[in-house]
Each structure stands twice: as C-alpha cells, then as structure tokens.
C-alpha cells in the first residue's frame, strides 16, 4: 500500500496531459513572431527607469534624477540581443492541489504554462532554464540551454515533477532556489516564477523582488485553483493545509468573506512589494485559458 506521501506526490494532470502536446498548442496560440526585445538592460535605445536595487550596475544610475528628485533610479535600455528565460516552478506540496472546476493540479497547470513559455522562447532562439521551488529531492531542473533538445529536457523534467516539500517550514528550500537563480541568471534574462505564493515564508516577497536587479526581468505568476479563489464550500468543513499540517474547522458560509479578504491581502502584499522593485505580477486561475495567461506573461516580460 502506498504511503501518504506517495499519494501526495502523485501529480494530478487531469486534462492537461500530455504536456508536450498541450504546451505546443498553447505556444502556437500565443503570438510568437519576431518581437522587439523585451529585455531591458545595456543597449542603445532608452527603455525607461526603475528603482535602484543593490547590485545594479552603477554605470546606469541616473545621476540627473538623483540630483533633481533625490531618488535612486536606474536607466534601462532595450537591446536586440538574445534573452535567456529562467523558469521557476513552485513544486511544493500546496501546488498539488486541484480542487473542483480545475482541469488539473496547480503544478500541472503551471508546468503547462512553463512548457509553453519554453517553447516560445526556444522558438525565438532564446536559451531556457528550469528551476524548482521544492519538489522531489534531487530534481535539479534544467540548466539554461537553447535548441530543440532544450525544450525536450524542460518538458521531460516537468512531466516528472511532483508536489512535495514544505517551504513554510523549511526555509532552505527558498534560499537554495533563489540563491542559485541569483547567481546563474545572466543580466537581461527573464525570470518567470510560477507559484501559488500561499505557504512561502514572510520574507519571500522581498527575496524574490531582489532578483529583479542587474537588468533581470522578474514576472511572478500566482497560480490559484478556482476553489481557492471562490471558497465554494458550505456548512461545517475541516480543511487541512498541504504544508505545515494545519487543520481548520470552520463554518464556510460564515467565514467566506473573511477568507477572501485575507487572500486579497496576501496577493496585494506580494504585488506591492514586487512592483516597487520593478518586478511584474500576474494572477492566474487554473480554470483560465492558459493561452491568455501565457500571452499576459509574455507581455509583462517586455
């Protein structure tokens, strides 16, 4: 008889499988033609300002803005060079949740979006790398590389992914992933993080926002199941958290509004912290059309 963890780790792909085929369909639905570089950083065409983050190249510090407005701003430029795409998929236990009305588990849906993004990037000649937040011990992801084989490696890794780990209790999960990402992501690369943001430590938003330096573009996509957004339960329910083992018995009707308020506050806090540091924030529900979400992410990454 399989253990409880075995059940937990068995990812519910639902109607999202097969991933490879579904990812191609999604990618084809997205406008992926010749595009202007969405990467901002060193280049010839001015691309705007953003707030300074420690580690930014001081050469691009806008001294005029500093003198006029007493604010540290960094000048950004558009470039025509290739852009590395770094995908960070949250594979902690909470991403294994599917809920009613969803085509599959959140991790499966995030894998589909990630694979579609990889397909688009590789189609544009950009290298793609994949990193997991949590997940099965030993799944190191896919280092940044280009070409058809890179897509196969990304898809193969995503198909083997499982939702495991407790990022709320084990702070090393976050440190390990973000530390490696900060070291390996090149200037001007695009970092797309797909996570529900539910059980991450309190300082996670600041840590993620800090990546958006050195010309890196960070797009954080919050992936939630429809149940998590609507809280459609009725009567007395006992809800068990997938991370931390917390069990809550409550009257669904009586507490629905307060739950939504708390969820909105969590999302708002993340969005406020990220946008203040130049990162982008995208909300997605697994019942939504992944094509639209991928397109939204692509637009946010420009």
């Amino acid at each position, binding site marked *: 008889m399989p253990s409880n963890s075995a059940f937990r780790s068995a990812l519910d792909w639902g109607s999202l499988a097969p991933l490879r085929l579904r990812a191609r369909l999604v990618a084809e639905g997205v406008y992926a033609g010749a595009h202007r570089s969405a990467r901002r950083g060193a280049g010839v065409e001015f691309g705007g300002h953003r707030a300074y983050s420690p580690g930014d190249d001081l050469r691009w510090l806008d001294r005029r803005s500093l003198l006029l407005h007493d604010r540290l701003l960094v000048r950004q430029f558009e470039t025509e060079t290739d852009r590395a795409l770094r995908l960070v998929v949250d594979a902690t236990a909470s991403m294994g949740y599917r809920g009613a009305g969803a085509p599959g588990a959140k991790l499966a849906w995030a894998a589909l979006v990630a694979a579609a993004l990889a397909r688009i990037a590789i189609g544009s000649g950009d290298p793609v790398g994949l990193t997991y937040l949590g997940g099965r011990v030993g799944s190191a992801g896919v280092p940044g590389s280009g070409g058809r084989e890179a897509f196969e490696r990304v898809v193969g890794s995503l198909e083997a992914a499982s939702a495991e780990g407790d990022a709320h209790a084990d702070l090393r999960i976050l440190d390990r992933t973000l530390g490696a990402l900060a070291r390996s992501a090149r200037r001007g690369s695009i970092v797309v993080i797909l996570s529900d943001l*539910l059980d991450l430590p309190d300082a996670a938003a600041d840590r993620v926002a800090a990546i958006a330096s050195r010309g890196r573009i960070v797009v954080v996509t919050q992936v939630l199941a429809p149940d998590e957004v609507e809280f459609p339960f009725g009567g*007395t*329910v006992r809800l068990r*958290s997938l991370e931390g083992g*917390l069990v809550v*018995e409550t009257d669904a009707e*009586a507490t629905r509004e307060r739950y939504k308020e*708390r*969820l909105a506050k969590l999302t708002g806090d993340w969005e406020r912290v990220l946008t203040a540091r130049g990162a982008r924030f995208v909300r997605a529900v697994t019942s939504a059309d992944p094509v639209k979400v991928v397109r939204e992410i692509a637009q946010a990454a420009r």
Partner: protein
Amino acid sequence: MTLVYAFALAIGLFVVAPYLAHRLRRRRAEERDFAPARLVPLAPPRARSRARIEDRALLATRLSAILALALLGASPLVRCSRLSLARASGGSVAMAIVLDDSMSMRAKLGATTRFERAREGARQLLSSTRDGDAVAILLAGSPARVALAATADLSAARAAVEGIQESDRGTDLDASLVMARGLLADLPQVDRRIVVLSDLADGHPDAPPVGEGSTVPVWIPLPELRGAVSDCAILAADRSGGEVRARIVCSPEASTKGRQVALVSGGRVLAHAALPESRSAEVSLGLSLDDVKRTEGQGSLSVQLSGTDAIVSDDVAPVVVKAGPRPVAVVADPTDGAPATGGIPVVEQALAALGLEITVRPIPAIPDRGEDLGLFLGVIVDDPKGFTPEQRRALGAFVEDGGFVLLALGPRAASAPLGASLEPILRHTTTWDPTSSPGVNPEGASGAFAEAAAGGIDLDAKKRAVIAPEDLRAIGPLLSWTDGAPLFARRTLGRGEAWIVTLPFAIDASDLLLRPLFLTLLDAWTTESKARASPRRTAVGTMWSFPGAHTLEVLGPSGALPVSREGASPSVAPEAIGLYTIAVDGKTESRVAAPVESEIDMRPRRASSSAGGEGLGDAHAAVDASPAVALALLVLMALEMALRLRARARAEAA
C-alpha cells in the same frame, strides 16, 4: 396483541431514522485538503453552538412526531394500568366507592402511599363514569363516614375525592360496607356495585372475607395495597414522677432488632432503651432529678422509636402525665348517710356496687379552693347545711368548667345557717315539708329514667325538699312526683351541670336508696359526667365534645381543626395522632390522640371470592387516546415546519 397493534407500534422503530440522520449530519466534518487553509478563519463559536441547538430541537421534534404517529396508529388498542368500570348491560351504574383513610393506609407504596394509590384509583374510576351514573363515596376510617351521598353530579364526586385527607383513624370496613349498601339501596340504577379501595387491614385478619354475602356486588381492586409491610407504633407514653412508661406494639411481621426507644426533650435524648423483641411491650425510661425539674410543667417530652418502618408518624408519641380516672367526691354525713348496721354511707356502697370503674373518695366538706375540686370527676353532696362563700366560689368555678354535681336536698339544707346558701346551684333556700304525693309520675320521666321510673310509683317519703318557685324556672325536671314537683332535676351551669334530688340519701328520710331508681340515678349521673370529662388521651378519631362551651379552638399536629357545631355542643374529631392544644372559653388544656392498636396489625383480611371484579370493572382499561395524540402530532408537525423555516431564513441571511 393483534397484528395491527404490533404493526402500529413497529412504526415507532423508525424513531431511530431521524436520529441516525442527525448523527450523520452532526458527525465531525470530513477533512479535506485545501492549500490555503492557513488563510481560513475559525468559525465564530456562537454560530456553531446555535446550529447545534437548532439541530437538537429539530431532532427532538421529529422523534416525537414519529412516536406520536406510532401511538396514533395503536392508540385505540393501547391498554393502560388504570381502573375502569365495566358495563355488562351498557346502562348507567350506581357505584359506592369505599375509600380507606385509616392509619394503615399511610404505609409507603413505592414513591407514594397506599392512600394516594387508592385515591388515584378513585380518580380513575370517576373518569370512567358517564352522565347518568350515580356515585357515593364513603370513608372506611373508624367511625365509617359518608364523604358524599349518592349523586349524579360527577364533578362533585371528583371534588369530594380531592378533599379527602389521610388520617390516623382505625378501620371499620364492615360498617362502611353496610352504609354503602344503604346509600345504593334507593337508587334507580339496576347495575350497582361497591368498590373497596383499601388494604383490608382492620386488625381482624381472621374475620370473614370482606364482601362475603353482600347483596350488592363488591369489587376489591388494587391488590398492591395488600402487600406485606411491618410497623411498630407507640400507643401510649405516660409519665409518673421520674419514670416514663411507653407501650409499644408491632405488627406480627415487624423486626424489632436494633431499634431503640428514646425519651426526647427539645431534641435532646434524655434516656433510651432497646425495643424488646415481642409484639407488645412496655418500656420504662427513667428521668434524672435534673431532667425531672427541667421538664416539669413542659409539654415537650416525647418518646421516639429509632429506625424506619412502614408508617413514620406513629413512631413518636408525646408524653402524658399519668393520671388515672378521676375520682368522684362524696360529701356525706356518715351518721345520717350510713345504714344502721354501720359501714360506709349508702351512696358510696351504691357507687361501688354499680361497678362503674370509678374511684369514690369521701371528703368531709366541699373544698374552699377550686384547684382541689378540679381533681374530681364530680361531686356528690348529700344534704349539706348550705355552702360557705369560699365553697360557693370553688363549686361555681368547678361547675362552670364542666364539673358535675349531684346535690341531695334534705332537712339540713333547709336549715342552712346564716351566711350559708345553696348557691350557685339554687339561689333561694329550700324547705323541708311534708308531702302527700304517693310517689313519682313515670309519664314525664326523661330517657335515662324511663324504665326505672315505674319502680318509684309507690316511693315512700314523709317529707321532701321544696324548691323555691324562682329556682324551679331555672331547672329542668328529670323525674317528678305525682303532683308535678321535681324529684330529680338538672340545671346547666356553664359547661357543667348540677343534678338535684329533693330527697336526702338517708334511709330514715325515704326508701329511695332501697330502690333501683336510686342506682339508675347514680348510673346516669356518673355516665353523663364521664362523657363530659374526656381523658387526656383518647384513640384517634374519637369525638371530643365540649357541651356548654362558647368558644373552642383546637390546634393539632397539622394545624387548626374545624369545630363542628352540630347539636348542642361544639365538638372536634382528631384525625391525626399527636398532641392537641385546646382552648375552651379562654382556658387551655392539652389532649393526646393515640393510635388505634388494631391498626398496627397490617395483615389484610381476605377478600371474598366474588370480589375480583369480573363484570364489574377492569384494572387494565383500553383507552382511546387518538384525539389527544392526533392533536399532539399536528402541533409537532407545525413546530417542525417553524423550525425549518427559521433555519432557512437564517441560512439565507448568512
């Protein structure tokens, strides 16, 4: 049990259905995974408890509705353990209910008493009567009484049953049955019966069966009243100096082992002794000198039995200062009153010969103090030379308080010295005159002398006392001479009486003393005086009469007693054993009502073989409760709808 009956009751098994549904609904909510559980707030405790209460109310309503439905199906067939009348001919019934209110009915029967069970039986019988039936209610406590004469007013019968109280009386079943037959005799109903609600314990377990040979059918239901019980009772507790003697009687089945008899004063045990292992025993308890002084004149002494038995109220008895029958004082001149052969005066000899169980105490003269006279049951004064002022005052007080005087008038009374008179009995002096009357007139003799008067037709007397005409108007003749002058007369003074004889008790004056008429006179006077002077302790239920009393208040163990003023004198009947304080015309005295010994024998008499009630009634009546159950079912359904509507309204509001 018919198939329909079983099927209807089987519906009651569905009572578990809403309970199981409730349990399923109320069971702990099943756990489910929910990733953002950390963001879910706990439910408000008030809302949770409210939901719980609503659920229970709804559950209780549904359970009750199903049970009511089952009962509704079976109700015409439901049989209850209750008494009801049977109507063999279907016509109206005349019923006499004999309810035993004797002391033995105080015995415990589960959580209640035999009396309460019997009264409940009477209520059940009355509830099965209908218009046209006649009901009479009798009480079997001694003496048997009619609580309600035969009537068709059933509401009056119900009220009479409710008004009957327990008592400590003895039992007189036979008399109550005779009275019941008498009450039913003149009723038009053909179907008649007597229902006896009694333990049949009247102290005569070997007497003929109750109801045997009765011309009216007798039904003796409630066999549970006749179960074996045991009891011990204190019949009397008398104090004489420093000793208290208690007489205790136990029922044959009673165990006296381990029980104690204690003398108690103000909650303090002064002496105690073990209860002897015999059915009837007398226990002596000594008082110390200090206790004698401390309790002198107090009425707080009581004797108590430890342990418990069937009747608690008879385990305690107030102590009465022992006083034997009060003597009769005789004031007679030994020289004139004695026969020529010598010896005690004739009147004393006559009193002794009558065997009246009284003590005769000759005294030389009427005492000057009223207290000294109060020791006597009555005073016989033979031809006194008048009374001194002190004697008059003492004699007046004695008679006013209920004393009896027998005054014989003769030559000495007619020649009273200066300052002496016959007051307060006669206001004027008498004369001693010759008489020509040949004897008494038997025609006008009062009841007691009606037979003996014939023996005085030729009464030989040369002279007789003549009473002044003014006094004649105040006296009532008992027996008269042939010329109409009184020979025996009576005068009521306050609560007492003075009987007057117009001949002295001397052989020389007449031959009255040699005739039966004289003995009849003494017998009648003594009987009357004994009836007036009730002893301090009587059996419970004995009527206490107070002739001549103007005001009477009696306070018993259970409060003030109603005073009956039927007849010439007020009277009360103590219903409960214990100490009674009696205020008669402002003067207070104490009396004790003691248990009747026969009530302690709790063995029941046998019931006649025909008293089983076949054709007369049933102890397991079929009661059609359909209307009441249907109404209850409607109410329950309405309540359930109201609860569901309220729950829905709350859910929508939430």
